[in-house]
């Protein structure tokens, strides 16, 4: 029993989406895979990357974890604690998701289970890793218990878990991971568009020193009432048209414009700006994907569109680079 859910990249409009402007996101060919295997001993064990199989948890222990996490989340909503306090350990997200889904399905465990997660989505870089892992877990559980797959239902469940990780998730990550392909988002409404057909590469500049929440707050202080969001909106609207008409030349120009705006709001670290300038001089176009960073020299993932991989420039900066393509199908049982 195995379910796969893709990660995502924001192609245009990150940050601007907070101000009611559109954003475009794309599911990518990096994915989280949850495999569910029955075992003889009672309880649920988690086999997570780099940790091996954990001890089994009883359903009662998992319910207790859920209660504590929900209590902490209420404290977060009141402003008493930060979101990082809600889930004690990264694995708690999967434990919460498991018991929340089981309770929602009104299912009981007749035998033990091993829940194995493997993922090719970099963590902490705005690539929707947590949404993808949560969705692959819910999809695997749903299939194991022979529940009819209803996309809206899976979406709601994944958002419940995402809240504990991200505080107030926009739903973009869950939507795109669930449905796959590419979509435009504005004010919580998604509309599907074609996947871009342009050659793309993904460059890892390192995990940002500041979290998405910190970035958003910092930008809000300085640009909350700025007119720059209308400029983002215009770029994103044109981006959508360029994808629809498969206009690679225009996409190049729009990625550069996008980078200029992101740099202007201070989320592109200086080293990353220098890297992007070199990519542009070489003939490609590049921008950060996700929140970026307001401190340090790492900006998370940089998207490069170019006819070939910018291998030489990446080597110079010590960045890993690989081709990236869209995922047309979203969360699925395989």
């Amino acid at each position, binding site marked *: 029993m195995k379910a*796969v859910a893709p990660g995502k990249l924001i192609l245009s409009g990150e940050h601007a989406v907070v101000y009611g402007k559109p954003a475009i996101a794309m599911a990518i060919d990096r994915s989280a895979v949850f495999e569910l295997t029955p075992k003889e001993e009672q309880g649920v064990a988690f086999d997570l990357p780099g940790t091996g199989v954990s001890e089994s948890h009883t359903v009662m222990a998992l319910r207790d974890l859920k209660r504590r996490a929900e209590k902490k989340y209420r404290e977060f909503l009141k402003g008493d604690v930060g979101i990082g306090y809600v889930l004690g350990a990264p694995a708690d997200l999967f434990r919460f998701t498991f018991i929340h889904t089981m309770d929602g399905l009104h299912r009981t465990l007749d035998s033990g289970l091993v829940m194995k997660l493997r993922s090719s989505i970099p963590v902490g870089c705005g690539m929707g890793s947590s949404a993808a892992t949560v969705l692959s877990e819910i999809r695997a559980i749903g299939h194991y218990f022979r529940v009819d797959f209803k996309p809206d239902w899976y979406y709601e469940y994944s958002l419940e878990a995402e809240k504990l990780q991200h505080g107030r998730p926009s739903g973009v990550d869950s939507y795109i991971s669930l449905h796959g392909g590419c979509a435009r988002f504005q004010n919580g409404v998604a509309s599907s568009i074609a996947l871009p057909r342009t*050659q793309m590469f993904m460059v890892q500049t390192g995990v940002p020193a500041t979290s998405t929440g910190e970035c958003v707050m910092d930008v809000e202080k300085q640009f909350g009432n700025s007119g720059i969001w209308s400029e983002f909106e215009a770029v994103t609207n044109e981006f959508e048209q360029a994808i629809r008409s498969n206009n690679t030349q225009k996409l190049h120009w729009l990625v550069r414009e996008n980078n200029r705006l992101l740099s202007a709001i201070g989320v592109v670290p200086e080293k990353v700006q220098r890297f992007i300038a070199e990519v542009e001089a070489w003939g490609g176009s590049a921008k950060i994907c996700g929140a970026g960073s307001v401190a340090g020299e790492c900006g998370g993932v940089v998207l490069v569109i170019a006819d070939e991989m910018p291998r030489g420039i990446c080597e110079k900066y010590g960045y890993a680079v690989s081709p990236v393509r*869209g995922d047309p199908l979203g969360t699925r049982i*395989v």
Partner: protein
Amino acid sequence: MKIGIDRISFYTSHYFVDLKTLAEARKVDADKYYVGIGQEKMGIPAPDEDVVTLGASAAYPLMKEGELEEVELLLFATETGIDQSKAAGVYVHGLLELGPRCRTVELKQACYSGTAAIQMALGFVARNPAKKALVITSDVARYELGSPGEATQGCGSVAMLISADPRILAIDPEAGYYTEDVMDFWRPNYRSEALVDGKYSTMVYIHALIESWKQYAEESGRELTDFDRFCYHIPFTKMAEKAHQKLCRKCRVKTSREDMQHLLEESLRYSRITGNCYSGSMYVGLTSLLETGEEDLTGKRIGLYSYGSGCVGEFYSGVVQPGYRDVLFGDQHAKMLAERTELTYQQYEDIFHYGVPTDGGDYIFPQYKTGPFRFSGISQHKREYESLVDE
């Protein structure tokens, strides 16, 4: 000595598009497809599926039952080339864990090559009665978005074990064939979609049928009324009906609508919901006939017409063997067809454009729903395949 099809197994992709969805996107009446060409759904391969995985998946049930142990000839018929030099069948040979003592080759002549493979396999078994040949037909039918051929896309594969004393169909020695250099359908190396002159192709299909039939009739002395069922090459199901009507007219055999239904309908059921499978098309029809027909066909003679644009046509026949129902995979195929996932129009279009990367880079493909084998990526210009059998 009887020689023929000992086992037959069919496979198609897990994903499909309903032609109602396509009709809506193209702003035409769905009946243009449902009634006009007699097609309802088209199979769309997952991004990690190709003719190798389709073909190996078709043959997997035979592997599982230990039927491939005496195979010393593997003929892989396809027009969906994945390599200019290496035969796709060699990858399949590895996935199916066939013995090294095996002659493997790929055959190409548009939709006809599966029949060429069967005729060659018959010759091999005639000379080596204790040995078996595995014929695999495997194709992905693709046309440009919005083109007239678009609704006739599809994909699928049929694996057939050819042996002496076959348990399913003993193939008659007579055959009629016809070759003519025409340009009704072709795909240059630089294109990923075929070029087709649909109306011309229909005319040539029928002309080649009449000419093939003439030779077959001369050699066998049989008449059209000597057949209990017919299987035609099925680019779309209406083509088979049209072809049979023309043949009956040529032979001055009167056929009612009911007669046509009786002679053809069961062979068209799978094709209507999988779409064109090119080299496997007629054999998908034969599988459909054997597995979905209510009447016991034991001892019945089946007329088989295979056509490949460009063009080669062949008419041959076979007699259904006693106990054939016991060795079919009908239940598995019904389950596979019932459990497919429907795609939205956007998903279909995205998959259509997805393709296999051609920039020479290394890629690891994420996993989609496939059969027991998948196309897992490209490394150093080599296609890499993965068996999911042990999972």
